[in-house]
């Protein structure tokens, strides 16, 4: 019999791999130029965003098309606190996350009663509506003209972190999201989420409090997304509602998770890194047609790997069949 892993190792090696990856990412910073640091920092930002969406969309199966509302709220709360109340960024950051989580709980209670497409569009409506409300409170948020966080002179309560600083913050946020996802994935809570995804009525029948679980997950994913949004706002210095509540960000989160493999720990990470790398590389080398190529590549990826990369690898390993064409045949009409 071939030597196999001891049960203890089998349980622990993913944690070891995760810690190794995060440590490597810390070390990576010393190898990069300032502009590259910024680019990789943005990749970590998307990793965090994808992982946070994965909690509500991937595990629980409630695809939130309005996830960006937490991103924007986190950003604007930080902006308002730092600009008007002169708070330090380090204080505004957790508060923004908590307020975003609170918003998630608040809207989650009525919205999570809806299912499938209706939930998706309702969250989209909330996101767009929130953006419009933010645009219409110019005294607090600067409205359509944007708001500028104080980063120079005496008004700046926190020194601007610079590309290196933001790299570290985004990396820590990505690691935090990874940790949360890993913990959720292996816990009873995670099983509850998967149960709700597969058959919500049956889950309720076995005694899971589906409403409470869903709202909690929504708030948690909102918290994480809000933290990322707050950091983003500080990084950008001047923020506008149409950018911070941009529906394209939600779409990107969904694309990254689904291409990587939704409902898994590794899937969103691979999806985020892969997609960001690809779009950056295309944009730098094919300045005129990069969106065209990106669209074509996404179409190809979706047709060949409809279930996402990680799930495809799992199934292929189990069946011993790696053929992509067979994969296509499995899912087509």
């Amino acid at each position, binding site marked *: 019999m071939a030597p196999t892993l001891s049960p203890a190792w089998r349980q622990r090696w993913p944690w070891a791999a995760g810690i190794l990856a995060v440590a490597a990412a810390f070390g990576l910073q010393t190898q990069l130029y300032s502009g590259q640091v910024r680019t990789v920092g943005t990749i970590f930002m998307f990793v965090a965003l994808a992982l946070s969406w994965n909690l509500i969309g991937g595990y629980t199966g409630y695809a939130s098309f309005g996830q960006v509302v937490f991103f924007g709220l986190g950003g604007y709360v930080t902006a308002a606190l730092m600009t008007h109340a002169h708070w330090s960024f380090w204080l505004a950051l957790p508060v923004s996350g908590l307020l975003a989580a609170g918003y998630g709980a608040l809207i989650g209670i009525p*919205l999570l009663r809806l299912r499938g497409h209706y939930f998706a569009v309702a969250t989209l409506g909330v996101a767009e509506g929130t953006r419009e409300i933010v645009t219409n409170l110019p005294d607090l948020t600067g409205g359509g003209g944007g708001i500028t966080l104080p980063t120079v002179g005496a008004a700046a309560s926190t020194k601007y972190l610079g590309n290196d600083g933001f790299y570290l913050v985004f990396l820590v946020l990505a690691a935090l999201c990874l940790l949360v996802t890993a913990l959720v994935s292996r816990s009873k809570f995670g099983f509850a989420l998967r149960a709700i995804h597969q058959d919500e009525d049956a889950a309720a029948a076995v005694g899971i409090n589906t409403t409470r679980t869903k709202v909690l997950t929504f708030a948690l994913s909102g918290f994480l997304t809000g933290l990322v949004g707050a950091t983003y706002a500080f990084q950008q210095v001047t923020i506008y509602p149409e950018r911070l509540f941009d529906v394209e960000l939600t779409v990107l989160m969904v694309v990254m998770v689904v291409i990587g493999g939704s409902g898994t720990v590794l899937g969103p990470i691979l999806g985020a890194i892969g997609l960001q790398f690809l779009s950056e590389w295309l944009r730098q080398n094919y300045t005129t047609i990069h969106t065209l190529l990106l669209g074509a590549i996404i179409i190809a990826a979706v047709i060949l790997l409809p*279930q996402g990369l990680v799930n495809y690898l799992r199934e292929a390993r189990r069946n011993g069949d790696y053929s992509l064409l067979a994969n296509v045949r499995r899912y087509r009409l």
Partner: protein
Amino acid sequence: MSGFFQATIYGLLQGGLLALVAVGFSLVWGVMNVVNLSHGAFVVLGAYLGWQLHSSLGLDPFLGMILVAAVLFCLGYAVQRLLINLVVNGPIFITLLLTFGLELLLVQGMNIVFTANYQSITTSYAGNAVIVGDIQLPLGRLLAFALAVVITVALVRVMSRTRVGMSIMATGMDRGAARLMGIRARHVYAVTFGLATALAGMAGTMVGVVDTFNPAAAGRFTLLSFVIAVLGGLGNMYGALVGGMLMGLVQAWGGYFLPGTWVNALAFLLLVVVLIFRPSGLVGKAFYSARLEV
């Protein structure tokens, strides 16, 4: 008071056209469970085709619309048959991704072929208004509204009276059973999508007459279609009409009573409220959300 009536009429006219933009999207989502993120791109493509026909051949856009519909039907059929049918059985949001990629492709393609210039189909008559008392009814919008209503009614007729229409409905209700009855699901799906894009194209041409457009406008139309389709209930044609007009009214009244920048907020608030209290839409039927699939 006449300002209020003017706003109301204008909003209704606008709403009719919006409904036509959204009806194809609603059809595809309701029947095939496909979320078509590239719907807005097809609308803009229709506008460009109508504009091209008008500027090269001098063809009046309301006539050229028919040609545009034919071309876009073929395009939509091909897209569904060759691309989307490949992933229809996959996890629920895979079609979303596919259409996202398609949208990038289409918008950038239009950017390259037609350039990013803003365009509009200028006709001699569209800007003139029929004046009824104190109210101005712009001719272009009036025509667009009338056509939108006519097309929607015709569509409902097609769906409920013709073989093609009924096979679409049947496949939408229960694909497995439909196949067992001899309906070729792949073909029916492709026809549905082609129909949706043809409708989008017609709406696009009309939008081109009353509005300015450029490739970047695609996203706006998709978002609008999302909202109106769900407002009216997925897969429900009359619902799309009602949803569209409601949207137009809300925007007009909101714009009249509130500062101009609150209009969009109101529209989305309406959507959320309707969804919370009537989740299957204003005119929607419950069975579309409990569909069987094999």
